[in-house]
């Protein structure tokens, strides 16, 4: 199996029919080129509206409908329709970009980090802004410093709203004190959601050495990290609507101690200082390195590659491009066995690329991914989608892949010869036995089903 083939499927998003001609010359250089900073945006991603405008519009609509519903229970459900329209537009742009990009390694990294800093469309109004979050917070930062990516993600309104940080009020903040004096029956206070996920999922990892006390303290430190003008009860309406807003009035004042270190900064600077330290913590380095190695090498990656990545992460202060370079130059990443079982997302994207096809009807893609259990932008929890065959390798899940392969083959019909396609996109990774089985199929259509469902194509 040659390196050009591995580069296209393991690091990239799967080859298009002509891609191997490019990747075979100097696969490492082809990959390194893609992490020199973000490439030009795909037109459809470029055209997407700002998340601030969308967030404000849908929140207004929701408030308005609530008021109308009080008078007329059957008031039109415009909110749901508008949110779905945004979601469809954003998923469509995402999958078109994935199908068409000449920088598939960069694009894979966008998907990887979007999943690391996961938000989920099963909570409103996330479906309206999930793709915009990916565009604004993740996409520009995947080859920069980890701290910049971290700050961009935690400060994005989508993350703040998803994990309720706009509701978190410091008990000793001016507003917290006033509110609790007024209403004895109900205490207004901290919401630990975002603080917990920062520690557990975004930086140190669950075994990274923090305590519940650290979670609570971090929650205090980031009180006031909020969104301008979006509260649906009209409270806290200051700031530019739909953008990050630091609210002094709900920020818990005073110095705080996290992981044994005292932070005496005032206001937002305090939280930023904590995140800066978290971003360069050895636990974070190892946690991120393990996830990268798991994504590119194997479900249980060898310690050697994790060690190499951790070392460079710490030495460079979390320079992500330097980490990718280590990965690209490590022999562990070029093993000629395909260790990774594709996720449904990988499978669908690589199928689109194999046919050089951009989805015309976005429902076809979201429908397929929904059926296979990986609805776009909807992992169901802030932990994101798992990255192992243990999760994706269910029996029913495989059957659904076969059914989908069959459906795609019906659409493609006899227009493409599956043996030729296999030669073009798998190159010397095309198992001769698979090739033989496909060439003996009843029809081109059946052969295509066999090809898409083959172990050769289902792994990367």
């Amino acid at each position, binding site marked *: 199996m040659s390196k050009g083939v591995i580069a296209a499927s393991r690091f990239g998003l799967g080859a298009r029919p002509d891609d191997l001609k490019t990747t075979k010359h100097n696969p490492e250089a082809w990959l390194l080129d893609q992490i020199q900073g973000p490439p030009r945006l795909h037109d459809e991603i470029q055209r997407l509206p700002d998340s601030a405008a969308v967030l404000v519009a849908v929140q207004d609509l929701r408030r308005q409908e609530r008021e109308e*519903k*009080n008078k007329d*229970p*059957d008031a039109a459900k415009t909110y749901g329709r508008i949110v779905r329209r945004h979601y469809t537009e954003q998923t469509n742009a995402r999958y078109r970009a994935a199908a068409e990009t000449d920088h598939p390694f960069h694009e894979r990294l966008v998907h990887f980090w979007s999943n690391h800093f996961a938000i989920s469309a*099963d*909570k409103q109004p996330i479906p309206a802004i999930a793709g915009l979050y990916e565009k604004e917070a993740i996409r520009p930062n995947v080859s920069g410093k980890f701290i910049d990516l971290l700050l961009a993600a935690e400060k994005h309104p989508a993350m703040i709203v998803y994990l309720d940080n706009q509701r978190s009020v410091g008990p000793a903040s001016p507003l917290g004190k006033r509110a609790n004096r007024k209403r004895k*029956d*109900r205490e207004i206070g901290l919401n630990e*959601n975002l603080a*917990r*996920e920062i520690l557990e999922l975004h930086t140190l990892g669950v075994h990274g050495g923090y305590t519940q006390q650290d979670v609570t303290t971090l929650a205090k430190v980031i009180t006031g990290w909020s969104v301008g003008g979006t509260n649906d009860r009209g409270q806290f309406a200051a700031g530019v609507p739909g953008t990050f807003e630091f609210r002094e009035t709900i920020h818990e004042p005073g110095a705080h101690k996290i992981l044994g270190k005292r932070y005496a900064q005032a206001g937002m600077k305090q939280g930023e200082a904590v995140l800066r330290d978290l971003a360069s913590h050895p636990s974070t380095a190892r946690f991120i390195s393990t996830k990268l190695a798991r994504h590119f090498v194997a479900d249980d990656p060898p310690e050697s590659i994790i060690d190499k990545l951790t070392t460079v992460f710490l030495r460079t202060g979390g320079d992500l491009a330097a980490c990718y370079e280590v990965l690209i130059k490590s022999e562990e990443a070029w093993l000629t066995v395909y260790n990774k*079982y594709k996720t449904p997302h990988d499978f669908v994207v690589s199928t689109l690329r194999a046919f050089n096809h951009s989805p015309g009807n976005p429902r076809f893609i979201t*429908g397929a991914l*929904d*059926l296979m*259990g990986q609805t776009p932008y909807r992992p*169901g*929890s*802030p*932990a994101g989608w798992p990255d192992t*065959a243990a999760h994706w*390798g*269910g*029996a*029913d*899940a*495989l*059957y*659904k892949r*076969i*059914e*989908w*392969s*069959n*459906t795609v083959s*019906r659409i493609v019909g006899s227009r493409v010869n599956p043996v030729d396609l296999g030669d073009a996109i798998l190159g010397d990774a095309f198992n001769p*036995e*698979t090739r033989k*089985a496909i060439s003996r*199929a*009843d029809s081109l259509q*059946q052969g295509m*089903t*066999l090809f898409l*469902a*083959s*172990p050769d194509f*289902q792994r990367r």
Partner: protein
Amino acid sequence: MLNRRDVLQSVGLAALAGGMPGLAVATTKSNARFVLIVLRGAVDGLAVAAPYGDPNYKKTRGELAIPKPGASDGLLKLDGLFGLHPSLSKVYESFSAGEASIVHAVASPYRERSHFDGQDMLENGGTVVGGTRDGWLNRALAHVDGAAGSETAIALAQNTPLVLRGDNSVTSWAPSKLPDADDSTLLRLQRLYADDEFFATRLQQALRSQEIAGEQSMLDAAAKRGNDAQQFAELMTSAARFLTTPDGPTIAVAELAGWDTHANQGASGGALANRLAALDTGLGNLRDGLGDSWKRTVVAVVTEFGRTVRVNGTRGTDHGTGTAALLIGGAVNGGKVITDWPGLGKNDLYAGRDLLPTTDIRSVFKGVLADHLEIAPAFIDREVFPDSATARPLRDLITT
């Protein structure tokens, strides 16, 4: 034309499909069947089992009050205090046969009002939203004996619900909206997969599930039409097939959404009544499909939290706290409403608006796990429901 069974047996893989028959016999008590049905969206427990005997019932419920037992469209009498919703006629048959109980005024430890977080806590089994990444039923599987080489539990859902996610392997099945691949293609795929164990075993398991679920299943047809009431009814028929398959799963989880009745909830008839009828039909199908196995079955029907006692401005109810849970099955020590009834008086309500929870839902789960699935209480306290010392298991839920 080949059928699935022929496909299974055709290429010498039948041995794989059935494992080694002599060895795969279920061990110890694994005759017990357990089904968990999660009703997503917060069910109004006061409509499921209405406290018609409570002096404040008619007053507080207003137009949502269901007529007394005996009246036209009236409740089905459970006891002097409670009546079952008239849509739940099959459940009532089981109740009358001593095979169903209502546990009333229950709630998880969750006291806020988000569906998302409420379901998370109901399923993670802890006291913190997002506190664990696995579910309590998955953790319990470590102490449930199953057939060798096959999964003990099945999620009858597109995505495995949190309650069943975790380290212990579970299987899944859901109806498909896509056309089946034809048998000739499946046969060729089996040959293609023969040298790759990962793919070969999974395709074999999948074909087995397809066979159990029925090839031209009504369910696929219902899925294609998007009628989810009918889908649920058919899904329960499939659940029964899975649970009665030799060496098949003994535990199943299913879910039904559509309970968030903020507007036009209705009383004896209407939106909620239709939803309850769908649940009732499904439970009836499950009972009928299980046949003899019903005797060894407990079905727990639960929801994330209840709804407000009073009617809101849109003839519905808003997110509340205490609600009702249903236990049904031949192994249920039933025919009773289990409750420490808090009352509906103004000062009885939680936060002045909700049914006050007096029983922790984990007490119900712990009782079922201990007495039905025979899991050691120490293990339940330590691993399945940590931080549940205040929730003592209810120990009279199951027949002995």
